[in-house]
């Protein structure tokens, strides 16, 4: 074939040798795509025969026999599947021959390089993502160009079109990114794992959780909404109208629901990536993937940041960009109907993002809580149990503080609010380091020790509604835990490093107490539906001044720092009475904290903090959020109304889909198959179109339970049912 020792011979020999060396082939675990195997087998056997032809001095029988099998396998089989089978079997045989040879990591990396260069030559192994194959034509660089409309002269319309085009173009880009992940990362890793036992420690499900779901969500948005709008504009030779793709964004929550899982797991996947970066073979692979993914993008976009870390962030980041893009389109839109549609689109996108945000927050909160709960040690209980002996300890071991259990008063999960290192003065007047932890319903005083930063409880956990905070000086606080009978249970004197921190803590404790207090009252109200708590609630909303207590305290000017004097010891009785007074006043919901008599003076004039503050779960119950819920509801009704209008306009429910020529063809075929059924359906849909305005009103009405009808909603309802005119947004 070639004269031995010629350049081309050497090159060929080298390549063939690299490919067929059996140590680099191993047992496949899963079946491969037949097409690809055929190509690979083809290359392999071609090389092999040229090696045989050129190098008659092939020494190792075992090697050549397995290679012969390889070549034989290709020739004797007819169908593609058989070829794939044979290829795998031969690879397996070759692997078994060499299995005794221990592979070093360097060998593995060489092997990886060979496989990857093989991927470069024969094309990528096929992924089994049908959607991706379906839209890959759209993703080819230059497949879609910005529609140029010469009829547009007004600057605003030109900018509107440019903004819409930006939305579409960036959507294509995100699809390309996802394609890169699916095609280059996941598929090749799977291939390497199955056919070469390489990168076996890489778990693609952990690294790219639910990427397929994210991809299909974006696909739906593109193929059902954005692309048809572009096509419609192209056929009508007019501008792209926002209302043509409105449905995709109004149903945003529905479409992107599956993508949420990815977004919530992104932190873990990035942590996993950080672990994997220690693996050299994986780094080699990532380098290769980064290089070969460039071809997925437009050549002029070579400045694209294709690091894996960025790729992982993109789908998540994309979701928050839609709002911006739609706002931009709206800024340049003049048509009333389009503006209205955009308003709804922006509303539903931001609703989704807010939901994602709060889900994410919940998850972060839960993880933080778990971190603390895992490190928490109930030191006192341990000592007590030891003292009582084993029998007792087995009985009592179930009584431990479980931070992760739901809060007893409302069953909601607990959240950590604050954490700080403080100096704590103990009963004997000695100072120790401690860590203070504030949760939504309790406070812990702990000590940190050991490498694992274990937290040992120094004091019994304090219920926030039984806690009284007093300020000593600018950086010190006295925390008084009370019993059910309003007597003193425990007294903790803490000093914070800075005044700012101290202010912060005081503020946060007050807020948390107020939130808890209002939750407790709501709970009491909903459980017993007793008139008394209702009165309590209304009282707390418009707090009357409490002259009695403040006056009492005012009358004791000599006890300027009642608690400070007490801490010096000696006047124990004074301490008890003053503290108790402060405490009783506070527990009655009248005084929240006081650090000097001058502040107590101020209480008279100062309104109490509004009880229903933070606590997301609690906000849903408070009066303020009722309003919010109503506007959400209104949004839903408007959405419903808009969608039904949209349907009426195009008569058939699948009107948006049917605009695509391909789909039209498919539908025609279907119609030929089942002409009768289809005709019947069509007549039905014509009837429906006539009544859809009425049905939409009915649907909207069904959404609103009768007892919840407020005047505002009634007005909205009448808007909807009358003549299909748009209600004011």
């Amino acid at each position: 074939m070639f004269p031995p020792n010629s350049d081309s011979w050497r090159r060929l020999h080298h390549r063939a040798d690299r490919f067929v060396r059996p140590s680099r082939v191993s047992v496949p675990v899963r079946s491969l795509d037949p097409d690809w195997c055929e190509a690979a087998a083809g290359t392999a056997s071609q090389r092999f025969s040229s090696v045989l032809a050129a190098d008659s001095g092939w020494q190792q029988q075992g090697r050549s026999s397995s290679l012969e099998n390889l070549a034989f396998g290709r020739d004797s089989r007819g169908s593609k599947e058989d070829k794939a089978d044979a290829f795998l079997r031969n690879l397996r045989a070759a692997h078994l021959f060499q299995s005794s040879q221990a592979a070093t990591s360097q060998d593995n990396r060489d092997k990886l390089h060979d496989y990857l260069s093989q991927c470069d030559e024969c094309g990528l192994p096929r992924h089994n993502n049908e959607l991706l194959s379906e839209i890959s034509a759209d993703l080819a660089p230059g497949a879609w160009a910005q529609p140029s409309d010469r009829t547009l002269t007004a600057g605003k319309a030109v900018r509107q079109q440019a903004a819409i085009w930006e939305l579409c173009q960036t959507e294509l880009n995100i699809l390309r990114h996802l394609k890169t992940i699916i095609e280059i990362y996941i598929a090749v890793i799977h291939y390497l794992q199955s056919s070469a036992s390489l990168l076996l420690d890489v778990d693609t499900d952990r690294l790219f959780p639910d990427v397929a779901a994210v991809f299909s969500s974006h696909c739906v948005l593109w193929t059902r909404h954005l692309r048809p709008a572009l096509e419609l504009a192209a056929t009508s030779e007019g501008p792209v109208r926002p209302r043509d793709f409105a449905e995709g964004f109004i149903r945003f929550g529905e479409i992107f629901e599956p993508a949420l899982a990815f977004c919530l797991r992104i932190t873990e996947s990035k942590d996993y990536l950080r672990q994997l970066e220690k693996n050299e073979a994986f780094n080699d692979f990532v380098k290769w993937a980064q290089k070969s993914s460039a071809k997925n993008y437009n050549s002029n976009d070579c400045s694209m940041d294709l690091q894996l870390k960025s790729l992982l962030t993109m789908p998540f980041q994309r979701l928050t960009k839609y709002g911006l893009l739609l706002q931009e389109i709206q800024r340049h839109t003049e048509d009333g109907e389009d503006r209205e549609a955009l308003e709804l689109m922006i509303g539903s996108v931001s609703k989704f993002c807010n939901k994602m945000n709060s889900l994410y927050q919940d998850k972060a909160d839960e993880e933080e809580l778990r971190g603390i709960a895992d490190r928490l040690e109930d030191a006192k209980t341990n000592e007590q149990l030891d003292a009582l002996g084993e029998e007792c300890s087995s009985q009592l071991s179930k009584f431990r503080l479980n931070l992760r259990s739901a809060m007893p008063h409302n069953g909601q999960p607990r959240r950590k609010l604050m954490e700080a290192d403080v100096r704590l003065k103990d009963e004997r007047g000695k100072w120790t380091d401690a860590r203070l932890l504030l949760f939504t319903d309790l406070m812990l005083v702990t000590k940190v020790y050991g490498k694992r930063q274990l937290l040992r409880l120094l004091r019994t956990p304090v219920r926030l509604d039984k806690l009284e905070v007093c300020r000593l000086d600018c950086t010190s606080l006295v925390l008084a835990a009370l019993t059910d009978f309003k007597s003193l249970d425990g007294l903790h004197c803490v000093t914070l490093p800075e005044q700012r921190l101290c202010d912060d803590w005081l503020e946060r404790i007050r807020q948390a107490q107020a939130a808890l207090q209002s939750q407790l009252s709501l709970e009491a109200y909903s459980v017993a539906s007793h008139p008394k708590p209702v009165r309590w609630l209304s009282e707390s909303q418009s707090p009357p001044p409490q002259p009695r207590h403040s006056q009492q305290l005012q009358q004791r000017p000599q006890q300027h720092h009642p608690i400070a004097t007490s801490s010096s010891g000696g006047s124990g009785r004074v301490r008890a009475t003053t503290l108790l007074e402060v405490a009783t006043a506070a527990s009655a919901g009248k005084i929240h904290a006081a650090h000097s008599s001058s502040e107590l003076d101020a209480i008279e004039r100062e309104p109490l903090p509004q009880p229903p503050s933070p606590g997301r779960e609690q906000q849903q119950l408070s009066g303020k959020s009722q309003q919010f819920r109503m506007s959400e509801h209104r949004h839903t009704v408007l959405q419903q109304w808009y969608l039904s209008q949209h349907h009426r306009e195009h008569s058939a429910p699948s009107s948006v889909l049917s605009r695509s020529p391909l789909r039209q063809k498919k539908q025609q075929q279907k119609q030929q198959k089942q002409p009768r059924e289809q005709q019947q359906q069509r007549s039905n849909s014509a009837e429906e179109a006539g009544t859809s305005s009425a049905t939409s009103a009915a649907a909207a009405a069904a959404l609103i339970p009768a007892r919840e009808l407020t005047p505002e909603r009634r007005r909205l309802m009448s808007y909807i049912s009358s003549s299909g005119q748009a209600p004011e947004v």
Partner: protein
Amino acid sequence: MSKSVSKSVKPIKIVVIGSGGVGKSALTLQFSKSKFFLDYDPTIEDSFSKSCYIDNEMARLDILDTAGQEEFTSMREQYMRLGQAFLVVFSVTDRKGFEEVDSLIQLIYRVKDREAFPIMVAGNKIDLQNDRCIDQSLAQELVQRHQEFNPYCAYIETSAKTRLNVDLVFHDLVRLLRLYNAKGGSKQAKKSKCSLL
């Protein structure tokens, strides 16, 4: 700026943060595209990298623009974790945005678990002199306060519209990062475990 050089340089991840509407995207787009958009300003830049020579040394900048994420606070840390250097943008015409700068910087320290980190504070939109409500001295003061313990923090005034200091702000940030790395910034004592929300 040959391609082979740019490939061999390890990219620097810069994260641009700031409250909504202060011109984060405008700054990054101006820097990356180095051109004006006459009829239309793009709203977002997906993600991009740019190579340039800074002090005769090649640098590849991967810039992550966080526009649109301002209100989704729980997701903010995701971006911050990626960053090796931060550009905190505020608008000199917007008091609220300026007030947020301090808390954003605090958040960077917390997420990065460092007391010092390369941070560039940019006062944008200085072309709108008439609407200006944040004085240069006010911003300088804020940055000086941070410089007491974070020497890798600096302030600069920019205008994405007139392209004033747009390159400089990114270049200076890379200089800060180099300084930080040279001083063994990554090995610096970790921030004490005390963390406050």
